[in-house]
């Protein structure tokens, strides 16, 4: 008799299986699978919900209150000020256009780049991803790398697919960062690209995962991504 994989039995015990009837029927006939299934059920019982300690709301409020800045009445009221913002943006765009025309007509133009202040611990990372899509990209990359960093053995198919997908998008963001002259962001994304390429092409041996993990740890890539991501004011929008 063919036995069921552990994953199917876990899904069954968690009521996440799409094939519950068939599994139940199998368990009635197969003693081995029934024993594994019972062992999973026992594990779930052992790790069932325990009471949560009650934290002191008042103390926490007092502690928090001291750290709250006053969000001024000058916070943009998203709807009322919309037209004002649009006209301001148009004005700024026109001014920028005039500056570009002036520079172009008065000698050669060289693109100034922001100083690279923070690659792997050489200073604070001050550049911020302005594009929410980049923030989302960094967020996904951070999760993937964290997962890989904590994974034992070879990578599974889903992780590889995620790495491949991120790698394709990463190339666009590297290009955009270079175009905008953001050297620090481009450097972090290039470093990310190298790790993603390795992930995407990694042969299925535990050894290479260890090598990759080591590379990630030594390069401080995860740290750079986190700092870059957390600098982004709009990042939390992705969590909504």
């Amino acid at each position, binding site marked *: 008799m063919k036995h069921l994989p552990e994953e199917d039995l876990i899904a069954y015990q968690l009521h996440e299986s799409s094939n519950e009837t068939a599994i139940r029927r199998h368990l009635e006939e197969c003693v081995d699978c029934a024993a594994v299934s019972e062992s999973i059920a026992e594990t779930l019982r052992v790790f069932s919900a325990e009471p949560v300690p009650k934290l002191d709301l008042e103390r926490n409020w007092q502690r928090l209150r001291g750290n*709250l800045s006053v969000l001024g009445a000058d916070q943009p009221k998203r709807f009322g000020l919309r037209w004002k913002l649009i006209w301001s943006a148009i004005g700024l765009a026109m001014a920028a256009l005039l500056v570009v025309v002036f520079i172009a007509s008065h000698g050669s133009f060289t693109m100034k780049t922001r100083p690279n202040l923070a690659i792997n611990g050489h200073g604070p990372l001050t550049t911020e991803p302005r594009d929410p899509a980049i923030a989302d990209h960094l967020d996904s990359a951070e999760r993937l790398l964290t997962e890989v960093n904590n994974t034992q053995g070879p990578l599974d198919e889903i992780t590889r697919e995620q790495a491949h997908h991120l790698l394709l998008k990463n190339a666009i963001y590297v290009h955009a960062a270079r175009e905008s002259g953001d050297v620090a962001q481009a450097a972090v994304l290039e470093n990310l690209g190298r790790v993603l390429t390795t992930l995407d092409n990694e042969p299925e041996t535990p050894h290479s995962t260890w090598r990759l993990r080591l590379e990630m740890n030594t390069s401080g890539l995860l740290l750079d991504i986190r700092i870059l991501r957390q600098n982004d004011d709009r990042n939390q929008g992705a969590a909504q």
Partner: protein
Amino acid sequence: MSIPPIIFSREPNQWANPLSNRRMDRAETEAIREVLGGNRDAYRVLMDRHFSSVARVAFRITGNEEDAEEVAQETFLRAYNKLPSFREDSAFSTWIVRITMNTAINLVERRNRDLSYRAPRIADEPSAAEGTVRVADGQAGPEGELLGREAASLRETAMAALTPMERAAFTMRHMEEVPMSEIAGALNITVNSAKQAVFRAVSKLRRSLAPVAGGLR
């Protein structure tokens, strides 16, 4: 003297799903407007309503009271600072619990990286019992208490071996009974990845119980 084995009973979840997308009522909407208008004390209304669910989720993921409190503080501070970008078409409860989960995962990752962090003492060897894990009940004597501490230590050790993502997905699904789709949304991963994280967690936990459960079957 032998102590009868006491099996953990599954407590019914007495709280609502912390990620349930319930609509905001007028008091919450008004509180947000007031905060954005400069009245920071109005934030207390939101904290009164959501502190317990934030603290509960934080405790599930971090596994200890001190870290849960740190996560709760950071969560409410981050939510406050991001309030101007909060879209009122979604529920504040969903939004803040998602921030909590991400903040808690980040804290656990930081703790794991920090080698100097002193984790709770772990028993050198788990104790073997006759096919079940024994824990102390309310009236247990010194020996029962010892067994209870040992079981708690065993569970802590097993949970500590999970990745932060696995721990978050497992505790939310199994202990808080949050649907997979909502866990996936909160963790910004696919539903399939969330399921895999939960399944991996259960598999690891089962293996961790092997020494006391008479070996894996």
